[in-house]
């Protein structure tokens, strides 16, 4: 899994995730995202899921964990370009009740 981090204007932190998001890579993804969040203190964290070829419940933990972090700093979060399989798992976990889907 690779993360492409893009600091856009107006306090939007865009991160594009690519590859398989499982427990094995969760720690690294979490660390990279948290570093970017803490460094830029964005108003909005946008996770672009278009390149995610596999995700299991470990991905729910990663997304929810970042949501909690950004929220504690007063920011918000959205996920965009969610592939159908990832969408199924997000829906199952009720994620869209708290995280916007762009």
């Amino acid at each position, binding site marked *: 899994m690779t993360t492409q981090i893009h600091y856009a204007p107006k306090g939007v932190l865009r991160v594009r995730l690519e590859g*398989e998001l*499982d*427990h*094995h890579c*969760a720690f690294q993804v*979490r660390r990279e995202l948290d570093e970017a969040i803490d460094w830029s203190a964005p108003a909005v964290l946008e996770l672009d899921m278009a390149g995610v070829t*596999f995700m*299991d*419940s*470990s991905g*729910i*933990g*990663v997304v*929810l*964990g970042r949501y909690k972090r950004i929220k504690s700093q007063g920011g918000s979060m959205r996920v965009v370009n969610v592939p159908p*399989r990832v969408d199924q*798992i997000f829906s*199952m*976990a009720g994620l869209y009740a708290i995280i916007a889907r762009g």
Partner: protein
Amino acid sequence: MEQHKNFMQMEIPARSENEGFARVVIGAFASRLDPTMEELADIKTAVSEAVTNAIVHAYANPGGIIALEAWAEPHRLEVAVRDCGRGIDNVTQAMEPFYTTSPETERSGMGFTVMQSFMDEVEVHSQSGHGTTVRMVKRIGCEE
């Protein structure tokens, strides 16, 4: 009957780098049943959940082993993921959505729910202190 089924068995150390490997293996084995992309993804995801659980929850110390077994017959794949770890005290509770014993490591408690929604049968046998076996069945190429 049983001996006519094609089957595979493997053992891997309970290390996270083997999660992707287990998915590739079960994917290759299941491919012989000519599943749709969707069915294949269902199987890989469910196996990933069970294997990840064995890695995350079963063993307190390194060195634990996970067994992955699968049986194929026309239109039906059966998979078993087995560990000899701590076991689950209350399986019914463990299988409830959002139930997790590891919230501090960002687990969401959705693993069993994912397995149940992607597979046709999920059975968990567990004995405290002795280990856990998750047995799952996926019917392939059967119209609902």
